């Protein structure tokens, strides 16, 4: 439960560690307990087949990734880069990957995609740049692509780049990503601009509230990138176990419906990490999610492993 405390401080010691302290973590859980919808935030135990020793295993869904046009043959982990438009996401991407990148389109779509790689610690990471979106409710093709990648590709880590000067607007996307996946690192970019505009953004407070690492960066000046990668590495290898915040306060009109659906989903796929989100999407009439549910493609984050075909494990779950 207290794995958060074990998160190592950032490598160079220049920045304070962003991990919440144990007390605050307990506070958060106390706060969350009065909301009945929080029971699914508990991380999933690894399947016996994967064995308990494999906490550092990759969780991404290699089969789904292939159909999303990402080949994981030479990589250990896959990291998705999400964010609103105009938050310096491509700067972050370029700074991390350098010239090791190539651009193309998403399979079958006319939406550009950039892909690159980096090495950190002992692992090789593939970094996939998702389209810049304000939301993930699949209103546009961009949103659909970003959503599908996070949901079905199950990246080992999703970095959400946010603009420190427009935090509220950007948190909209962060909260939506946190509903789908636990494995998130928030890159609090444009800290220099925020300072220039007389804004102080408390990254520790934010990390506490969101339950995931929040790393302040100035990608343009290459500041904070090492810390960002460190956090990514810790989440990917399981050293750091995020306890993500889930959106508070289901509106009363939806509460009954959401609870009923969640109860059924819980029975259908015990431990589905994003049951509430799935319930909300079903209530919104999202056909992609409905199809994924009936075809058994809504695996848990821990259920798919690179070494095994994803389908069989998911099927075992459902």
């Amino acid at each position: 439960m207290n794995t958060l405390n074990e998160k190592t401080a950032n490598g160079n010691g220049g920045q304070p560690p962003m991990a919440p302290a144990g007390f605050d973590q307990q506070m958060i859980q106390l706060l969350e307990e009065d909301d009945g919808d929080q029971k699914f935030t508990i991380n999933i135990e690894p399947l016996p087949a994967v064995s308990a020793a494999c906490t550092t295993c990759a969780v991404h869904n290699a089969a789904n990734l292939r159909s999303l046009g990402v080949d994981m043959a030479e990589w250990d982990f896959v990291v998705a880069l999400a964010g609103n438009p105009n938050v310096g996401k491509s700067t972050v991407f370029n700074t991390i990957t350098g010239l090791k990148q190539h651009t193309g389109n998403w399979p079958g779509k006319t939406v550009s995609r950039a892909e690159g790689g980096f090495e950190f610690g002992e692992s090789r990471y593939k970094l996939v740049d998702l389209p810049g979106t304000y939301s993930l409710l699949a209103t546009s093709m961009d949103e659909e692509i970003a959503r599908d990648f996070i949901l079905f590709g199950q990246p080992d880590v999703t970095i959400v780049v946010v603009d420190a000067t427009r935090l509220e607007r950007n948190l909209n996307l962060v909260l939506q990503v946190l509903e789908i996946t636990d494995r998130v690192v928030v890159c609090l970019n444009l800290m220099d601009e925020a300072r220039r505009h007389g804004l102080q953004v408390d990254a520790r407070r934010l990390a506490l509230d969101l339950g995931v690492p929040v790393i302040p960066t100035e990608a343009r000046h290459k500041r904070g990138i090492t810390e960002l990668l460190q956090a990514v590495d810790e989440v990917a290898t399981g050293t750091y176990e995020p306890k993500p915040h889930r959106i508070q306060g289901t509106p009363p009109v939806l509460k009954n419906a959401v609870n009923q659906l969640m109860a059924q989903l819980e029975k259908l796929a015990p431990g589905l990490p994003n049951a509430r989100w799935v319930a909300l999407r079903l209530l919104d009439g999202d056909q992609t999610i409905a199809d994924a549910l009936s075809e058994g493609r809504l695996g848990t984050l821990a259920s798919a492993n690179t070494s095994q075909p994803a389908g069989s494990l998911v099927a075992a779950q459902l």
Partner: protein
Amino acid sequence: MIDPLIALLVAGLLAGITALLFWPERGLVIRWRRSRQISERVLAEDALKHIHEHEMKGQPATLESVAGTLHISRDQAAQLLERAEENGLVSMDAGMLHLTPDGRNAALHIIRAHRLWERYLADQTGYDEAQWHGQADRIEHSLQPADADALAASLGNPTHDPHGDPIPDATGQFVAHGGQPLTAIALDHPAQIVHIEDEPETIYAQLVALGLYPGMTVRLIEATPKRVRFWANGDEHVLAPILATNISVVPLPQTVAVAVEDDSETLADLKLGERGEVKAILPRCRGAERRRFMDLGILPGTVIAAEMISAGGDPTAYRIREALIALRSEQARMIQITRHTETAA
């Protein structure tokens, strides 16, 4: 070389003939294709729809009502219904027409296709209200159940059409809107519009012109055989009872406030440097655009400041949750606000 005058004349003639043949919507080719579409199948399907409608009202359809609605003679109607009966779609009982289970399924599919298409036109296209019904009346006969399902999926499986009518789902289930005519509710009691009848077209056009849409809250002030007076959307409306009965409402708890005589300002009324708090996005803003507004953070309670006007005079840039977003004037007119009296710094 050809004489230029003759060349010009011949070319002009050719252009004229081409236009006559292929002009969109009014060209001869289009007209010919449209006239071919009114086939017997279409008539039969319309008859099923009509019978279903009457069943829903609890007053079975008759041979006469079918003939009247479809604008065909009694003999033609009789032939049509005879064939429908042979196909096991309709049963006749003492002059009253009833649908068999198969007939009801067929009717429901047509209704589903019609309402889905209206939803599609409303949410995803630029056609205006007046054209929805007519287009849907044509399309409903050519959408196969699989097409309808695909359309529904792409629209997010909507439950209601833009007039407030329920769209039967793929299994044929639906829940009727359950409204009562506006004229039937208690005076001074808040109610919500759940349905606006889209036939006849002229009445519907008038109601749309008044800015009345499903989802709006209303309060009745006066209902006499001469006129019906009510508040809706911050305006007082006066309608002839015949028009008012085409609006269906459900009563709301007494505690719900109905906007009465407010200034009813929109974002477009803000001058540069002024701020306003969003009250609502008007119902005529639909589909992707409405969702986009909300994703951008335009929600009840959001404070928005007008910041710059384009050199071309139209889009205005608004500060919305710290970001600068340009909205065209017709978009800004769809966002209702209350003005903040103190101006932005």
